[in-house]
């Protein structure tokens, strides 16, 4: 499916450094996610280095970067699972680490690995995300089945994770996140364990879902194509996490320009 992102327009190419994030959506509300001088260290290892980044509500941001550059670490700080060593992370105007419970139902994560509870069947795994939200048993089941079916898992709802293939498990974990209908979606390589066709179909669906429901989504990927396919903004990270490029993609750009971006991203990923 050809999408509007084939028409791209560069608004912010900040190869020069990290202070070029000017892409906050106009309006009174602040950014949905903001990193201010964020550093994360693990002992001597610097995983994220003095990062500044704003992500506006309704944006679909693709995060590209070499393996080990700190992408998952950024996610952990956004989701409040870990605290920055230095600087400040704010999500929806609050501190996700200290105000952890406030975010119940407001964000959903597709982790890099499927992280299914081995003692629950596929459908019970999907339902788990809904159990904390005070949703009735019947509606939980209905929503869970809806998503499992949408992701092609009908007939496998009562299988335990060990009986599912890697890609099927990943789809269960996507269902689990989407079923919560959270306004912020964090996806860590959600489509990487899938074949090309399924992956393409799902990411198109994913982009449509995010746009239609005006959700904010950040998704990590190693595929430049995937980033171009669905992101309306592409953030390329150096190692340790520090912005190399920040491309805002909207409107029409030519094939030549797209190719130029691709080469540019390639170069910084190869560096």
């Amino acid at each position, binding site marked *: 499916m050809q999408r509007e992102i084939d028409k791209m327009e560069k608004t912010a190419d900040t190869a020069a450094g990290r202070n070029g994030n000017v892409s906050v959506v106009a309006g009174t509300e602040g950014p949905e996610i903001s990193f201010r001088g964020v550093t994360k260290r693990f002992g001597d290892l610097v995983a994220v280095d003095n990062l500044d980044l704003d992500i506006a509500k309704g944006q679909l941001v693709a995060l590209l970067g070499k393996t080990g550059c700190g992408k998952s670490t950024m996610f952990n700080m956004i*989701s409040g*699972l870990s605290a920055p060593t230095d600087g400040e992370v704010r999500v929806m105007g609050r501190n996700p680490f200290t105000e952890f*419970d406030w975010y119940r139902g407001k964000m959903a*994560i597709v*982790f890099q690995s499927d*992280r299914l*509870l081995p003692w629950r069947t596929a459908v019970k795994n999907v339902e788990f995300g809904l*159990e904390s939200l005070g949703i009735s048993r019947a509606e939980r089941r209905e929503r869970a089945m809806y998503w499992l079916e949408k992701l092609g898992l009908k007939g496998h709802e009562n299988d*335990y994770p*060990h009986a599912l293939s890697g890609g099927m498990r990943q789809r269960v974990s996507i269902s689990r996140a989407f079923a919560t209908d959270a306004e912020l979606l964090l996806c860590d390589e959600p489509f990487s364990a899938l074949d090309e066709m399924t992956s393409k179909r799902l990411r198109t669906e994913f982009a449509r879902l995010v746009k239609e429901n005006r959700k904010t989504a950040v998704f990590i990927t190693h595929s430049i194509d995937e980033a171009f396919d669905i992101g309306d903004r592409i953030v390329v990270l150096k190692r340790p996490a520090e912005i190399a490029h920040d491309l805002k993609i909207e409107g029409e750009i030519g094939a030549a320009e797209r190719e130029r971006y691709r080469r540019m991203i390639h170069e910084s990923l190869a560096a």
Partner: protein
Amino acid sequence: MSDATHGAVPANSPVLAFARRLFWIAAPFVLIAAVWQIASSFFPPFLFPSLIDVFERVVEIATTWSQFSSVLATALRILAGLAGAFLIGVVLGVAIYTSDIADRLLTPTLTFFQGIPALSWVVFAIIWFHGIEFRILFIMIMTTLPAFTFQVVGALRGMNKDLLEMVMSFRPSRGKYFSAMVLPAVLPEMLTAWKVNLGNASRVVVVAELVGSSGGVGFQLLQQQQLFDMAGALAWTLQLVFFVLLFQWLLSQFERVAFRYRAKSERR
């Protein structure tokens, strides 16, 4: 299984499978019994009584209420001791897992306790307390508490961090967190802990019953020793062993249902 292709009965027939299972359950016991029976024909009965005598005594104990109540009393003492130690062990284990201070205070203390022989607890219990049942309970708890606590701590620390964070990311209530994550994650190790401690407790309980109890397998064993009655001693011992086997079997049945989600590799 190399005998699978012989004979008219198909190798996968359920009857054959059942017979084979039964055979392997019985085989080790038949072996022990055979060795004993052979020995009994070479030695006087007060050393190696015939198994027929032993069997008669076993039946007698099981069918005479005044005697069987001793078995039940001992079984209840084992279970009460284990349940008490488990409950306290869970509380201490959670404390050690969640608090560094508790860890530094309790872990060395419990390790120290682990070095104290069961017989010493018997002596302490007799000096400190009056009630017989309370003495026994105290001994049972003190001897199994360290192991239970360490097993709880080990199970909690062994929880998968990735799964734990996934669960936390949905911001569950404490109750939900416990029932959906902690309980299923630690259950396998808890069951193993019960199995191991059951063995320990059944050995300690007979010692504990020497604190002046007038019933129970320990008391009965002491009687048989005074009478030099080997068949009786064996029969009482077997009653205790039967109880342990029965309880282990119950735990295994529970495991089979509770852990059916587990993957089994065809290679081991």
